[in-house]
């Protein structure tokens, strides 16, 4: 509770939380707040490429569909991709980091070297290679992102675990005869939680950007999915005349990623005093 209050007292973090809250609300309520919810699949060819107006807040697209309505539905895809991909990456990365840090001998070395291989190329390059191989779809984007992003959490938890292992409370638990699993899950993991949360918030932003880039390159969801990155690439053909077509999803991506980054910064200040030192 205290943490939440402190978070909200930081203007930037509060703004971040607000943006993310907005994204979630929009995603959940899209069918009700969208002025033309049917425009995800239905078209009005006579109204193609209309500029923004009272009826169409952000204008219409190449099929005469309402850009604003599609944008709202796109929020659902964005949030789905980000949550599942990051969730899976955390689910893979955290246990690996924990095990590698705890058994810091051959096992740990092997696991960390494996994660080094994944980190040896920029994430987007690996994600492109995987998404390209599997074919364009939302599921494959999620898979590609999970597979490429887990090492970040593994590295983080590995480093934390290694230092926590030498702490007295861990040694005490071991002395009392607690099993390795118990020590890892009950004693070490809770102490790495704040670092994981901070990394996750910032990781969401990065994941959304990469997912959008995949969509832009044509490796994301197939049409007529209202995915933001794909909408921007669709819109490119109609620039500079239909400027609203590309501007709207670009700004949406910007706001959402900004939200996660601001929240991540705020969380770090509160949860991770080590990093906080000197940053304010």
């Amino acid at each position, binding site marked *: 509770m205290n943490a939440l209050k402190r978070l909200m007292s930081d203007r*930037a973090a509060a703004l971040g939380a607000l943006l993310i809250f907005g994204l979630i609300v929009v995603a959940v309520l899209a069918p009700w707040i969208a002025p033309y919810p049917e425009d995800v699949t239905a078209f009005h060819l006579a109204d193609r490429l209309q500029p923004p107006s009272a009826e169409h807040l952000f204008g219409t697209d190449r099929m005469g569909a309402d850009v604003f309505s599609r944008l709202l539905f796109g929020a659902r895809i964005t949030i789905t991709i980000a949550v599942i991909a990051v969730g899976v990456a955390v689910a893979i990365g955290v246990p690996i980091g924990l095990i590698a840090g705890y058994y810091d001998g051959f096992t740990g070395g092997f696991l960390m*070297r*494996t994660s*080094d*291989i*994944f980190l*040896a*190329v*920029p*994430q*987007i*390059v*690996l994600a*492109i*290679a*995987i998404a*390209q*191989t*599997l*074919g364009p779809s939302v599921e494959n984007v999620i898979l590609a992102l999970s597979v490429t992003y887990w090492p970040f959490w593994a590295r983080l938890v590995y480093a934390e675990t290694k230092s926590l292992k030498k702490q007295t409370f861990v040694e005490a638990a071991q002395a009392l005869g607690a099993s390795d699993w118990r020590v890892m899950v009950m004693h070490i993991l809770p102490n790495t939680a704040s670092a994981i949360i901070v990394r996750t918030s910032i990781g969401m*932003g990065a994941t959304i*950007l990469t997912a*959008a*880039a995949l969509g*832009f*390159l*044509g*490796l994301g969801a197939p049409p007529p999915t209202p995915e933001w*990155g794909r909408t*921007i690439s669709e819109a*490119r053909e109609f*620039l*500079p005349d239909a*400027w609203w077509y*590309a*501007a709207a*999803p*670009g700004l949406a*991506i*910007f*706001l959402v*990623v*900004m939200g996660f*980054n*601001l929240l991540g*910064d705020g969380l770090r200040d509160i949860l991770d005093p080590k990093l906080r*030192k*000197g*940053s*304010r």
Partner: protein
Amino acid sequence: MRRLELVLSRLVWFIPTLFGLVFLVFFISNVIPTDPARIVAGENATEAQVQALRAEMGLDQPLHVQFGRYIGDLATGDMGRSLYTRRAISDDLMHRLPATLELTFAAMIIAIGLGVPAGVISAVRRNSLTDQVLRVLSVSGLAVASFWLAMELQMFFSTRLGWMPLNGRVSGWGPDEITGFYVIDSILSGDWESLRDTLHHMILPAFTLALPAAATLVRFTRAGVLEVINSNYVTYERAMGFPTPLIIWKYVLRNALISTVTQIGLIFGALFAGAVVVEAVFDWPGLGTYAVQSILQSDTKAILGFSIIVGIVFIGVNLLVDIIHTFIDPRTLK
């Protein structure tokens, strides 16, 4: 001695990491649903021709045999041939590498040139309006999708205003190729018109690419400088009556530089990766454009070669940074 040990232990890991990378990408790219032999044979080929080609390309062999063959070829610098053009992939990649490196370096210079001073100013004028504005800008720089920014900048500065070239590295055919880096080549050959033109073409893509990196640098420099300013010896010198600007130059910037160098490996990676998308928007004839084209054509071996080259550059730069770091900040040796 310790330095040598560190460097050697890093070098020892270079090969297995690279091998692991090749292994990973090779198997990823072989899950592919296409039949490369059919692509090469063309749409008019009969089944028998496709079979023959499959045998010729070694595609009838089990995957591990294909992998062994690939590794063997790779050791001699042979990455195979493009499915479409039958060009040697290693030649294509080496030909395009300078374009990407040049863009990456330009972006790096811009990122450092913008990010470090902004970070210092932000720290020195902590909590001032300038600080607030710079921090908002730096958060924004990390949140914007580079392909979108590239499109919008292109639309505004090239299409609407006509101040910037639309795309490419150079208007005509560029300077005589010596190194493949146009800035260097045009200086070496004294071709000042090409130099001007090259730099002009570089502005938008390099800026787009640099923005997120600059934002990262602002944040790190600010934190680094603040740490120094709050440290005891600065307080001490201040108490001794040294003028603030001198202190900043003497201690703060030196330390800021260290934290920047530490970041360079990371930043280089981010820039190199970002180039894939930015190049695609600006038709920059580098590795990124090549990769995107290969993706669209499902040219598996080309994508494989691209990933490996990027991996080598990436691992190499990180290795280099680690080594440089031991000189700048000897603490790492302890």
